[in-house]
C-alpha cells in the first residue's frame, strides 16, 4: 500500500484548489465550512482517520489504542506528532488488557462480516462466554448486582418499556469491553451556553441539523468537602439551604447589578444596550482593574465569593488577571442562558464534542469541499518571486496547486519547505491534566449530566488550579447499563496523575448526607493523561506567504467556543474579505421537493395540503424570530429518561 501511495501524481482528479486545509480541529473545520459556503474550492486533510484532532470523541477501544500509541515509541518521530497525542498516559491496567483484546476481536468480527447473520449471532454468544471467563468475570457479576439495586431508579425515571424489549435478545449482562463501542469519550469535553457563540452560529449557519444536544441537569460547586447545587433561578436561590438569608440578598444584588449593566430586559435596542455596557465598564474600570477586584468590592463571604467566581463565571484559568469586561460578560452569558433550553444554562453535545467539527466538515462537503482523512501534507512549495505559497505535496506524492494553506502549529512542525519560508509561530502553550473514568454509578449527590467546579485549594488545600468535572450518565454512554463517564480537567502543574489523583479519590468517595444516599461509585476503567494546546495569538501570516496558522482547537477549561469562532472568522475574512461567514443554508426541502403524482386517490388532497403548507411555511419563516428558530432545534431539553 505504502509504495502505491508514493509518487501517485494522479491520485486526486482535481489538482488545483483555492484553499488546502490540514487538520480537522474545530477552527480548521469552521474555516473549511465557511470557505466552501462562500464558493471557494477546499481540500481538507487530516493525518488521522478520525475527524476533529483534539476535538474528537472516541469509543473505548479507539481511545485505549490512541492513548497507548502516545505512551510507546511509536510517536517519537516528529512527523507523527499531530493532534491528538498525549503525554504521561496512565491507563488502569486490569481492565485495559481485556478491552484491547476485545476491540481486536470486534474488529476481526466486523471484517469477516460476510458470514451469515445467524452465524454472527452465535459468534456473539460465544464471545460473551469466552470473555466472561477471563479477567472480566468479577466485573460482570458486580454489574448484575448493581442492576438489581438500581431497578428502582430506572422506574422512577419512567423509561419507556419498549427499550427493554430491545435488550431482551442479549439476556446476558454485557461486559464493559462489549459495550465499549457505545461510548463517545471526548478528549476535551466542553459545555455550551444556551445563548453562547456556538449555538448562535449553529442556528445562523443551519449546521444544527447535524447535531443534537442535551441540557445539562445541574451545575455544582465543590466546597467544604461536598458538592453544592448552584441555584439557577431566583426561586431556587431562595429555596437553597447552603447560603444564609443575608448571603442570598448579596447574590441577588450582584446578579441584578450585572443585569443592569447589560440593560437586560429593557426596551433599548441592542446597539444602545451595547453602548450602555461599554460606558458602564469604562466607569467601573476606573475603580477596578480586574474582575476579581470588582468581586472583592462586594465584600462577600468566602462561600459567596467562590460561588460567583467559580460557579457563575466559567473562566477558570488565570483567575487573578481576568479583565473586568470579560468576567462580567461571562456572568452575563451565564444568567442570560438560564432557562433557555433547560434549568441549567448549558448544553452538552449528545454524541460528544467530536460531532461539532464534523458538522462543519459535512457542511463544507455539501458545498463541494473534498475530504481526505488518513493523509497529510508533506511539503510546501513557494513562488520564488512573490514568496507566497504555490503548491503543496501531499503524502500521496501528488503536487496540488493552492492559493492558501491553513493549518495549526503542531501540523506545521511536520511539514518541510524550501528555504525555511515558514516562519515559526508565536504561540502560547497551555498543558492540561485530564482524567477519564468509567464508573458504575453517579457521583454522590449529583444528577445525570452534571458539571462540578472545584475551586483552588479545596482538595485538602492542595490543588493550585480550578478542577472541572463533567459527568455524563445518559448520553455518550451505553444506554441503561449503569455506566457513568466522568471527565476531570485542570491546568497542569505536574503529570495528570499527580494533579488529579487525590481529587478523583475524594470526589468518587463522596460525602454522604444520610444513610439513604447510594454507595460510592467504583471505577471500572480509567486513564490519566496530559495534552498541550498551542494558542496562536495573531493571525497575520496571510499577508506574507498566504499560510495561515490557527490555534489548536481543544478547549481545556473554557466553556463554549467563542474564541474558536472568532479566530475562524478572522481567518475567513483574510481570505474572503467582506463576505458573510457561514451564511444560512436554505432548507433542503425547499430545493428538492416532489410529491408523488400517482399516490393513488389521495394525490390531489396531498397536493392541496402541500401548497397550503408551503404558503404557511413562507409566512412562518417571515415571522420566525430567533427565539422560535431555536425552539425548532433538535435540542433535547428534558426528561429523556
Amino acid at each position, binding site marked *: 500500500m505504502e509504495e502505491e501511495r508514493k509518487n501517485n501524481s494522479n491520485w486526486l482528479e482535481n489538482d488545483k484548489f483555492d484553499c488546502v486545509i490540514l487538520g480537522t480541529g474545530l477552527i480548521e473545520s469552521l474555516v473549511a465550512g465557511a470557505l466552501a459556503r462562500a464558493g471557494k474550492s477546499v481540500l481538507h486533510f487530516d493525518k488521522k482517520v478520525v475527524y476533529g484532532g483534539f476535538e474528537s470523541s472516541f469509543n473505548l477501544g479507539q481511545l485505549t489504542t490512541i492513548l497507548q500509541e502516545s505512551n510507546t515509541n511509536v510517536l517519537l518521530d516528529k512527523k507523527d506528532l499531530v493532534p491528538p497525542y498525549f503525554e504521561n498516559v496512565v491507563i488502569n491496567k486490569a481492565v485495559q488488557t481485556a478491552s484491547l483484546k476485545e476491540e481486536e476481536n470486534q474488529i476481526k468480527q466486523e471484517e469477516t462480516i460476510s458470514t451469515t447473520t445467524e452465524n454472527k449471532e452465535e459468534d456473539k454468544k460465544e464471545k460473551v462466554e469466552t470473555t466472561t471467563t477471563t479477567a472480566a468475570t468479577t466485573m460482570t457479576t458486580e454489574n448484575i448486582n448493581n442492576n438489581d439495586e438500581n431497578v428502582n431508579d430506572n422506574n422512577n425515571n419512567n423509561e419507556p418499556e419498549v427499550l427493554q424489549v430491545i435488550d431482551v435478545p442479549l439476556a446476558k449482562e454485557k461486559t464493559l469491553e462489549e459495550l465499549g463501542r457505545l461510548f463517545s469519550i471526548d478528549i476535551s469535553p466542553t459545555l455550551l451556553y444556551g445563548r453562547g457563540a456556538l449555538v448562535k452560529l449553529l442556528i445562523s449557519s443551519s449546521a444544527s441539523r447535524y447535531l443534537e444536544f442535551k441540557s445539562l441537569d445541574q451545575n455544582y460547586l465543590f466546597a467544604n468537602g461536598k458538592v453544592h447545587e448552584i441555584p439557577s433561578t431566583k426561586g431556587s436561590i431562595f429555596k437553597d439551604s447552603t447560603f444564609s438569608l443575608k448571603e442570598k440578598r448579596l447574590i441577588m444584588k450582584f446578579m441584578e447589578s450585572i443585569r443592569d449593566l447589560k440593560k437586560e430586559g429593557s426596551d433599548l435596542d441592542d446597539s444602545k444596550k451595547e453602548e450602555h455596557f461599554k460606558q458602564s465598564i469604562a466607569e467601573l474600570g476606573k475603580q477596578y482593574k480586574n474582575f476579581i477586584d470588582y468581586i472583592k468590592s462586594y465584600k462577600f463571604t468566602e462561600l459567596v465569593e467562590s460561588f460567583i467566581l467559580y460557579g457563575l463565571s466559567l473562566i477558570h484559568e488565570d483567575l487573578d488577571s481576568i479583565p473586568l469586561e470579560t468576567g462580567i460578560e461571562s456572568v452575563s452569558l451565564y444568567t442570560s442562558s438560564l432557562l433557555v433550553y433547560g434549568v441549567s444554562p448549558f448544553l452538552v453535545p449528545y454524541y460528544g464534542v467530536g460531532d461539532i467539527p464534523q458538522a462543519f466538515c*459535512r457542511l463544507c462537503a455539501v458545498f463541494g469541499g473534498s*475530504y481526505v482523512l488518513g493523509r497529510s501534507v508533506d511539503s510546501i512549495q513557494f513562488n520564488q518571486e512573490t514568496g507566497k505559497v504555490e503548491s503543496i505535496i501531499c503524502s500521496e506524492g501528488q503536487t496540488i496547486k493552492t492559493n492558501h494553506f491553513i493549518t495549526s502549529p503542531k501540523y506545521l512542525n511536520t511539514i518541510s519547505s524550501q528555504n525555511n519560508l515558514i516562519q515559526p509561530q508565536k504561540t502560547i502553550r497551555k498543558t492540561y491534566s485530564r482524567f477519564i473514568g468509567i464508573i458504575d454509578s453517579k457521583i454522590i449527590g449529583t444528577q445525570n449530566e452534571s458539571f462540578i467546579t472545584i475551586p483552588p485549594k479545596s482538595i485538602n488545600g492542595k490543588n493550585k488550579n480550578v478542577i472541572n468535572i463533567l459527568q455524563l450518565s445518559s448520553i455518550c454512554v451505553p444506554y441503561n447499563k449503569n455506566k457513568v463517564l466522568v471527565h476531570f480537567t485542570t491546568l497542569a502543574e505536574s503529570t495528570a496523575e499527580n494533579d488529579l489523583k487525590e481529587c478523583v479519590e475524594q470526589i468518587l468517595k463522596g460525602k454522604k448526607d444520610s444513610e439513604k444516599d447510594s454507595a460510592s461509585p467504583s471505577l471500572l476503567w480509567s486513564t490519566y493523561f496530559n495534552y498541550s494546546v498551542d494558542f496562536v495569538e495573531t493571525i497575520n501570516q496571510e499577508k506574507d506567504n498566504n499560510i495561515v496558522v490557527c490555534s489548536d482547537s481543544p478547549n481545556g477549561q473554557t466553556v463554549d467556543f467563542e474564541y474558536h469562532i472568532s479566530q475562524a472568522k478572522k481567518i475567513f475574512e483574510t481570505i474572503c474579505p467582506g463576505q458573510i461567514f457561514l451564511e444560512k*443554508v436554505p432548507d433542503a426541502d425547499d430545493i428538492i421537493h416532489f410529491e*408523488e403524482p400517482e399516490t393513488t386517490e389521495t394525490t390531489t388532497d396531498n397536493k392541496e395540503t402541500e401548497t397550503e403548507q408551503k404558503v404557511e411555511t413562507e409566512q412562518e419563516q417571515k415571522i420566525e424570530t430567533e427565539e422560535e428558530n431555536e425552539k425548532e432545534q433538535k435540542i433535547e431539553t428534558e426528561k429523556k429518561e
Partner: protein
Amino acid sequence: MCNCGSSGEKPTFNDRKSTSYEHLFKYIMVGDSAVGKSNLLLQFVDKRFAPNSDFTIGVEFGSRSININDKQIKLQIWDTAGQEKFRSITRAYYRGAVCAMIVYDITRRDSFESLNSWLTDCRKFSSCDVTTVLIGNKADLEANRQVSTSEAKEFAEKNGLMFFETSAKTALNVDEAFEKSTEQILKKLESNPGLLSNEGNN
C-alpha cells in the same frame, strides 16, 4: 439524529414543513464514488436523470412522500456529499438512519468488491436495527455487466440484505427499492415500536 419521529411527537428541525405524514424515515446512501448514488436520489425524488452532472452543490438530502398501506411516509434521503471518495464520511451521517442503501455499479467489479467494507461501516456507525438494501445500479448497461445478478443475490442473502438491480437512468426498480424497503421498515416497526427511539440508535 432522530429525524424519524412519528407525527405525534414534537417536531424536529427538519420535519416541521409537513405534518401530513405518519413517519419520517432517514435513508442514507453509501457505496463507491460514481456508482450513481446521487442519480438514484434524483430519480426517486425528482423523476429525472442528469447524466455526467456534477453532483448538486448545496443539497443535503432529498425528500419525497410515499404512500404505503394507506400510510403517508416521508422519506428523507441523505447523500454522501462526496465524502465517500476517500472513505471520509462523518459519523453523524449514519446516525438516526433507519435504512442504508449500499450501492454498487453492475459494470464495475471493484465497486462490488468494496461492499464488505461499506457494510462494516454501516453496521459500526448505524443503529443495530438499520434496514440494509443492496442496490446494483446501472442495470441498463447490460452489455458492460461485470457482476452477475446471481452473485449479488447470493451476497445479499448471505448478509441479510434486500436486493434490487436498478437503473437511475431508466428509473427501473428505483421506486420499488424505496417502497419495498419502507414496507419492511414498517413491518419491523409493528413488531418493535421502540425502533425509532433515540436510545435504539446506539
